[in-house]
Structure formats: structure tokens, C-alpha cells
């Protein structure tokens, strides 16, 4: 009874994460060792937390979007745009606060654009965000003028990607803060409930007084903001803005993290904690495959297999079959019980 609800609800994810981490520990014996060098924690576990930062941030925004029965395909492209904006602002002499403010504003604007298409023009989310996904990398290259903008001489921005605070790498601190803020906002207010209501039935929730347009707009704006933070971290990490490769395919990883975390693509109930675990599962897999000496190409096949398993578990058809199976067993149990009664 002492087991908190959150642990009980997320048992499958916790088990998977533990199994993968244990496998990693078997493959490379030093996996769990953590040491402090130069006032910063080092070790494979810290590396998982650190490398997983962009996907984790994207997954936070993506969870909220998917909970409204939507999807945001543009997050990778927004990361590229924001990285380009951050690099060009800092190299043209703006201070760090101004650069960060400018970058986050651009990400927010991208999110509001997506949200406006979905909420105001009633365009299907997958199509609405496809526009920015296609055009986004072009826009990013327009900002960087086709080159990889580097900022090796700007330690203040690089600090965001590779610095450390309280012995923890900055990206880890940032994603933990964003996650806590997001969970507090949606779960300590009615907002989370309203988001789920829209995901289950937008028309019904609109009719019962939920301002679905504003909430949809806010959800996509939040996703844009999360992508912006991820974009700044990714750019600061490589000390430059790469319009072609920043955030490439990360939208797929983010969606996968959300789905692994137990949020259904059909909208409705969502779990931010689950998505965070999903992101960590993906990152531990990536790290494990590298540690095992397999080529990183194995990643894709393993991800495909994971999606397939989740599809089978989540699909309405197999869930109906499961429910049927359980009901049958119960009736059988009842019958045998009554037969025993009759025998007595």
C-alpha cells in the first residue's frame, strides 16, 4: 500500500527501463559508476540523462499535443530554426539574456503558428505541422545563410550546452526544471483535465464550456517553446547551428517517447512522467547499442520493433480481445463456483 500511484501506474515503463539499464550494466561493467571530476559528475548514467535532454524536452511538449488528439511534426525543424536564431544573435553581439529571449520568442511564434492553423483554421494537426516541417529547415538555412554558424568564442552560450551547475550538466538541470514546471501547471490546475477532455471529444468539451481554441493554441505554443529550449541546447552543445542536421528525426523520437510512456495517440489520458521515462528508455537504448559495439544502425530496427509491440498492445482490436478473454475467464470461474455450490 505504500507504493505511490505514479509508480504503480508506470510499472511497465519502470520495468523496461530497469531491464535495459541492467543489460547496459552487463555489457559494460563501468556503466553505473559515477565520479566527480572538475566539479562535474561523470559517468554513463549521467550521460544518458544529458544526451537525452533534447528528446525529453520535445516529449514534454509532444505529450500535451498528443493528449489533445494532435501531433506536432515540426519540432525538429523548429529546433533547427531556433538554433540558427540563437547562433546568429550571439555572433552579432547580443548578450546572452537577449539571445535566449529572442530564441525562445521565435520558438513560441512557431508554436503559435501551428496552433493557429489547428485551432482557428481547423486543419488536421499532422498536415498543419507538416508545413513548418517542410519549410522550417529552409527558413533555418535562410537565417544561417547556408553555412554552419559557429560560436566557439562565446562561452556564455556554450555553457548552456556543456556547462554544469551543482555538479550536474546544464541540459539535465534545464529539462528537470521544465518537466517539474509542466507537471505543476497541468496537474495542480484544471488545465490537464481540460486538455484530456479536448482529446477525448473536442466538440463535447466545447459545448460544455471548455474554450478549446485557446487551449489548443496554448498546447502547440508550449510545444514550440519546448522545441526552442531543445534547439538552444543542441546548438550550444555542438557550438554551432547546423540547419540541415539539428533535430533531424527527433520528432519521431519524441513521438515514440510519448507512446512508450503510455499516452495513446488517439488522445485523452496523458502522463508526462511516462513520457520522461519513455525518453530515458530511448536514450538508454541508444547508449546501450553504442556500448555493445553494435553499429548505431541497429537503433532503427529496434525502434521499429518497439513501435510494433506497442501498436499490438495499444490497438483497440487486441484490447477488445483481452477484455473478452478476461470476461470469459470470469464467467468460467463463476460457473465452476455455482456448480460447486450445487454439488454441496
Amino acid at each position, binding site marked *: 500500500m505504500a507504493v505511490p500511484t505514479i509508480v504503480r501506474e508506470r510499472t511497465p515503463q519502470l520495468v523496461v527501463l530497469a531491464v535495459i539499464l541492467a543489460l547496459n550494466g552487463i555489457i559494460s561493467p563501468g556503466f553505473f559508476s559515477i565520479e566527480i571530476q572538475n566539479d562535474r559528475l561523470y559517468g554513463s548514467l549521467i550521460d544518458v540523462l544529458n544526451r537525452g535532454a533534447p528528446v525529453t524536452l520535445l516529449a514534454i511538449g509532444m505529450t500535451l499535443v498528443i493528449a489533445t488528439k494532435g*501531433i506536432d511534426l515540426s519540432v525538429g525543424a523548429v529546433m533547427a530554426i531556433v538554433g540558427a536564431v540563437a547562433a546568429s544573435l550571439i555572433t552579432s553581439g547580443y548578450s546572452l539574456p537577449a539571445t535566449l529571449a529572442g530564441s525562445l520568442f521565435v520558438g513560441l511564434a512557431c508554436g503559435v503558428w501551428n496552433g493557429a*492553423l489547428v485551432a482557428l*483554421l*481547423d*486543419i*488536421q494537426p*499532422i*498536415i*498543419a505541422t*507538416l*508545413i*513548418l*516541417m*517542410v*519549410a*522550417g*529547415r*529552409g*527558413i533555418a*538555412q*535562410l537565417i544561417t545563410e*547556408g553555412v554552419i554558424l559557429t560560436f566557439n568564442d562565446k562561452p556564455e552560450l556554450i555553457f548552456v550546452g556543456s556547462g554544469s551547475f551543482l555538479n550536474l550538466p546544464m541540459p539535465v538541470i534545464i529539462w528537470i526544471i521544465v518537466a517539474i514546471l509542466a507537471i505543476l501547471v497541468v496537474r495542480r490546475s484544471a488545465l490537464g483535465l481540460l486538455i484530456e477532455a479536448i482529446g477525448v471529444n473536442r466538440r463535447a468539451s466545447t459545448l460544455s464550456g471548455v474554450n478549446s481554441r485557446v487551449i489548443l493554441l496554448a498546447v502547440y505554443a508550449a510545444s514550440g517553446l519546448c522545441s526552442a529550449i531543445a534547439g538552444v541546447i543542441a546548438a550550444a552543445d555542438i557550438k554551432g547551428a547546423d*540547419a540541415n542536421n539539428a533535430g533531424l528525426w527527433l520528432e*519521431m523520437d519524441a*513521438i515514440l517517447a510519448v*507512446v512508450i510512456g503510455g499516452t495513446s*495517440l*488517439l488522445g485523452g489520458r496523458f502522463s508526462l512522467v511516462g513520457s520522461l521515462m519513455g525518453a530515458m528508455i530511448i536514450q538508454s537504448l541508444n547508449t546501450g547499442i553504442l556500448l555493445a559495439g553494435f*553499429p548505431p*544502425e*541497429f*537503433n*532503427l*530496427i529496434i*525502434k*521499429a520493433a518497439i*513501435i*510494433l509491440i506497442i*501498436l*499490438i498492445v*495499444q*490497438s*483497440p*482490436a*487486441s484490447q477488445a480481445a483481452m477484455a473478452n478473454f478476461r470476461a470469459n475467464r470470469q464467467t468460467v470461474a463463476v460457473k465452476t463456483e455455482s456448480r460447486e455450490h450445487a454439488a454441496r
Partner: protein
Amino acid sequence: MKNSKYLPLLATFVVFVLAYIICVSVFPNMLSTRVAGNLLTDNAFLGITAVGMTFVILSGGIDLSVGSVIAFTGVFLSVILRDTSIHPLVAFAMVLVLTTAFGAAMGGVIFFLEMPPFIVTLAGMFLARGISYLLTTDSVPINHPFYSTLQDIYFLMPGGGRLTLIAIIMLVVFAVGIVIAQRTRFGTYVYALGGNLTSAQLMGVPVAKTTIGIYALSGFLAGLSGIVFSLYTSAGYSLAAVGVELDAIAAVVIGGTLLTGGYGFVAGTFLGICIQGLIQTYIVFDGTLSSWWTKIVIGLLLFGFIALQRGLMWMSERSARNMRHASAAQPSSA
């Protein structure tokens, strides 16, 4: 209703003609069969896979796996031709069987597990790309003599333009696609599925067979597109054709097909491919513009066409409501 059905196609045609006029007025040389021939050759693989995508989108689905399948086909062909003495034609047949079965399997998962096509084909995209990585991560050249024979086949158009074999294949695929969509039972079923799944089911459309058939067709055409792509590049590379699925979807939407399914034409997709090709050709002719403008302009066109579709739907909804009001008012006045 009849008119609004053709309006997106008409809009695409107007955009195409306008774009061509702008191009020719800036660069008079673009009005030649040479440019037209190159445009068709350069976009042949995209056009072929876009035909499959049109069927998928008409049925209300989406297929994200086509780019990976194209890459897989190229890698498979190059590895087989390098390591064995199998004739390319036999290899073509083998790979087409594989990709068709792959598409059919995705269609089966979509229908029997009742899952969104988006996530199923996403898994297919990872799987196909992963398998081609496993075959080889190098770019493998193809220098089979049969390939050079195929590459040398062309039809000389008046004006010196060359209509290459792969461009001819694309035109044939479009012609066959138009016939399938408009003149066969399967085509009618596809439109019915996209219009309304439940009523299609109630009317007796074999939903399982049609869904599997649609994705099998898309897989087959992606395989054919991969063969054409390997003829075009003379190599197989597992990182090739990244993002082709987006270009194909964009061509379908710019071609006036409704993304919710049910409305659209294969011929429109051909115009969509031509518009994308024109933008690329313009950028090449200009020389100072960078290639990223292609993406931005395509993004703008996508937005324009999606907004147009929304506008049309609003208008038809409003006129339907007005008609209902009018018919409700009539009995009292009569």
C-alpha cells in the same frame, strides 16, 4: 458540389501555368523540350512514388515509409548485382515482390490492429531504413552493362529534348494510375474509403482487401521508384531519398487532393510534381538563389492549397446549411 470538386485541380493548373509564364518571361530558354525532358527525368522517381501516395491519401491514410523503401530498393539491387550474377531484371522482380509484400503487411497491420496509418508506416520507415543500413552503410556503385543499356534508351523529342526511359516509365505509371483511380472498381473503393469509412463498410466495400491493396500498391510503386532512382544515380546508398515522403505528400496536396481523403485526382499530382520541378529548375537557372528556397516556396504553396481547401469546405458547408434553411422555409410559404 460538382464544380467545387474540380476547383482545387483547376487552382493547381492555374498555379502551374502562372509559374511557367513567370519562368519563361525571366528565362526564355526554359521554353524548350530539353528543359521539359530534364524536368521529367529528374523527378521521375518522385512522380512514381507520388502516384502511390495519391491513392493512400485518397483513402484517408498516409504512407511515411516510401523514402526508406526507395533507399532499401537501391541498396538491395546494388548489393545483389555486386555479389551475385543474377540478371538485373530478375533482381527487379525480386525487389518488387519484397516491397509489395512490405506494403501489404503495413496495410494488414493498419486494418487488423485498427491503428493510425501514421504510426504504422512510421515503424515501416524505421524498419526499411534499418534493413538497408544492415545490408551496407556504403554507397555501392552499380556498373552492370544492362544498366547502361537501360540508361541509354531515350526518345528524341522535337527541339532536341530527350525523353529518357525513366521519364517514360513515370508517364506510364501516371496514365495507369489515372485509369485505376477513375475506371476500376478498386479505384471507386479507394474514394469510398476516404469519403466515409463507415458508410463504405455498410455499402459492402471490402475494406480489408482494399486497405491492404492500397498500401501494397504504394509499396510496389515505391519499389519501382527505387529501381528508377537506382537507374538515375547508378548506385545504392542507405542514406539516399531521405525526406522523399514529404516531397511526395507535398506534391499530392499541391495537386489538389484533399488530405482528409475522398477528393482528388492522380492527374493533379502530376501537376504538383511539375510545379516542384519548375521551382527547382528556376533556382538552377537563376544561379544566385540557394536551394533552400525550394523548401520555403513548397511550404508556402502547401499552406496556400491547404487554406484553399479549408475555404472550399467552409463554403460548401455554408451553402448546404442555406439549402436546408431554404427547404425548411418552403412548406410554410407554399
